[in-house]
């Protein structure tokens, strides 16, 4: 299941704009890696480059290599659609499909790819995914109601269920809790803890306590100066980043002296 991701000399551009410079890091399997840093420093951009969502935006491209268990995601013959089936993503704002029921939302990844699944298989998949997202008990009696009728936190867990239903190897989360209240945030954080048993999890967050709570490793991104591309300043065990960082900038950011 879970896979290792290596970034080698990754540079990311939006058209002429150089967004992120020279990222080199290794994301461990069966662990949670957190990306922290001030707004606009390229955390989300790097995250989106890990499942080729980056290039959905017109004019955006990536140079360098992103290796998923040794396979370069940006090699010529790689199909981005296949990459995304292995590397799932959860977004900042919960975005269940408004035309679909809770059940159909969970099955969306399977159904939209035209896989034929029997009623029994799909029932099992729905239950397994919703249980995996800690949502089963709350929605098991109303699987046929629209997904947009759930609360924000439930919608976000529904999106996580939808992501794990296609059984990916990696789950990317782009500030998954920033639109949620503390209780829903707690529910998602607990879920992230469970998810790392099976998946490689990468999470972008603005909340430093959250990074400290959920992650095993932390990457700190920053801009050298306004208008300069973002860079990976420091990457290591969360324990070390938060208690004994090597870089002055990391320490300043974590102690709240800027950003």
């Amino acid at each position, binding site marked *: 299941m879970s896979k290792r991701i290596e970034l080698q000399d990754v540079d990311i551009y939006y058209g002429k704009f150089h967004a992120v410079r020279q990222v080199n890091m290794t994301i461990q399997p069966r662990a949670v890696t957190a990306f922290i840093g001030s707004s606009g420093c390229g955390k989300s951009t790097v995250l989106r480059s890990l499942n080729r969502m980056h290039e*959905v935006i017109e004019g955006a491209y990536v140079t360098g290599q992103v290796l998923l268990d040794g396979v370069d995601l940006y090699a010529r013959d790689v199909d981005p659609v296949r990459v995304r089936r292995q590397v799932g993503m959860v977004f900042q704002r919960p975005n269940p499909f408004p035309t679909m029921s809770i059940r159909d939302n969970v099955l969306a990844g399977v*159904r939209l790819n035209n896989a034929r699944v029997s009623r029994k298989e799909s029932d099992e998949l729905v239950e397994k995914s919703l249980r995996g997202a800690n949502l089963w008990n709350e929605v098991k009696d109303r699987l046929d109601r629209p997904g947009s009728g759930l609360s924000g936190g439930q919608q976000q867990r529904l999106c996580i269920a939808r992501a794990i239903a296609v059984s990916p190897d990696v789950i990317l989360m782009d500030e998954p809790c920033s639109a949620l209240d503390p209780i829903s945030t707690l529910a998602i954080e607990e879920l992230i803890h469970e998810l790392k048993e099976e998946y490689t999890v990468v999470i972008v967050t603005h909340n430093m306590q959250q990074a400290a709570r959920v992650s095993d490793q932390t990457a700190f991104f920053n801009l050298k100066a306004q208008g300069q591309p973002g860079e990976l300043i420091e990457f290591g065990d969360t324990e070390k980043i938060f208690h004994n960082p090597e870089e002055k900038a990391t320490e300043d950011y974590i102690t709240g002296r800027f950003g």
Partner: protein
Amino acid sequence: MSTTTRSRESKLSLTAGQLPRFTWLALLVLAYAVTAGVLAVGSVMSLGAVVVIGSLLFLVAIFALSSAVEGRRKAVDRLFRYVFVGFFLLALAPLVSLVWQVVSKGMERFDLQYFTYSMRNVIGEGGGASHAIAGTLIVTGIATLISVPIGLLTAIFLQEYGGQGRLASSIRFFVDVMTGIPSIVAGLFAYTIFSALFGAGTRNGFSGAIALCILMIPTVVRSTEEMLRLVPNELREASYALGVPKFRTILKVVLPTSIAGIITGAVLAVARIIGETAPLLVTAGLNPSLNTNPFDTQMSTLPVFVYYQYVTPGIPQEPFYDRAWAGALTLILIVMGLNLFGRLLAWRFAPKPGR
């Protein structure tokens, strides 16, 4: 000293004078009555003059009264509210009078015979518009069947694939130009094409449908594109992130989310072309008999039927005028029915909120 205390008091006070609830109504009636009285004395009484002068009088009176009792801010508020309501009623007047005219005059011949008879061998009274109704439905139906797929696919290309590229920009530009084409030009275009391809003077229902397509496609493209633009990008990204290919994302996520608006747009486009007269005059033409073959000879349509009944009445004229009004009423009813049908479909397909 005393003035400062008073201004402080009035600032602190939360209460203010208020006019009784139906003062405006009483004042309005009074204003009309006074105006009517004065005009009657001068014997220049007319309904229009009473309404216009009376309304102005009412505005002045309510503003003065409200200023005195409620204060300036509320007086201005009232003044503007009544001015807006007045203009709304003004805008409504032609519509109401049109509906009234069409219904009252159209009901004269709104009978069974009208919907079962054509104009074959009818020179005076009697006859009906069954042939024209059938013609309108056939011509508009064909135009819709051609225009909606073309318009829909064009809009999908523009919004989902074209982006801001040169091809998409030029298509957008030409669609905008097409929106402005006068309908008679569309008719002459279709007429010329059919004359060139199938011999001079070829006029049939299908050529009429082609003329209508030229008018309909740009409206469908524009409305569909707007609806697709309203679909949040997040939904597309959510779908991509599940490893769903682009075309299936469009088919299964983008279109279902926007289908209600797309249907409404298509129905509005149909409503726009169903009443077109000029292009059908030169293409589909006129035929007193029922003709259901769009590829053979001329075919009457409701607007053209109405037009000819009105401009070339026989003797006596009355039956011709009555048939024209009944035709107009039928046309309005068809458009209304289409609108209701469109709303029903839109309601049926719209994403439903709800817990």
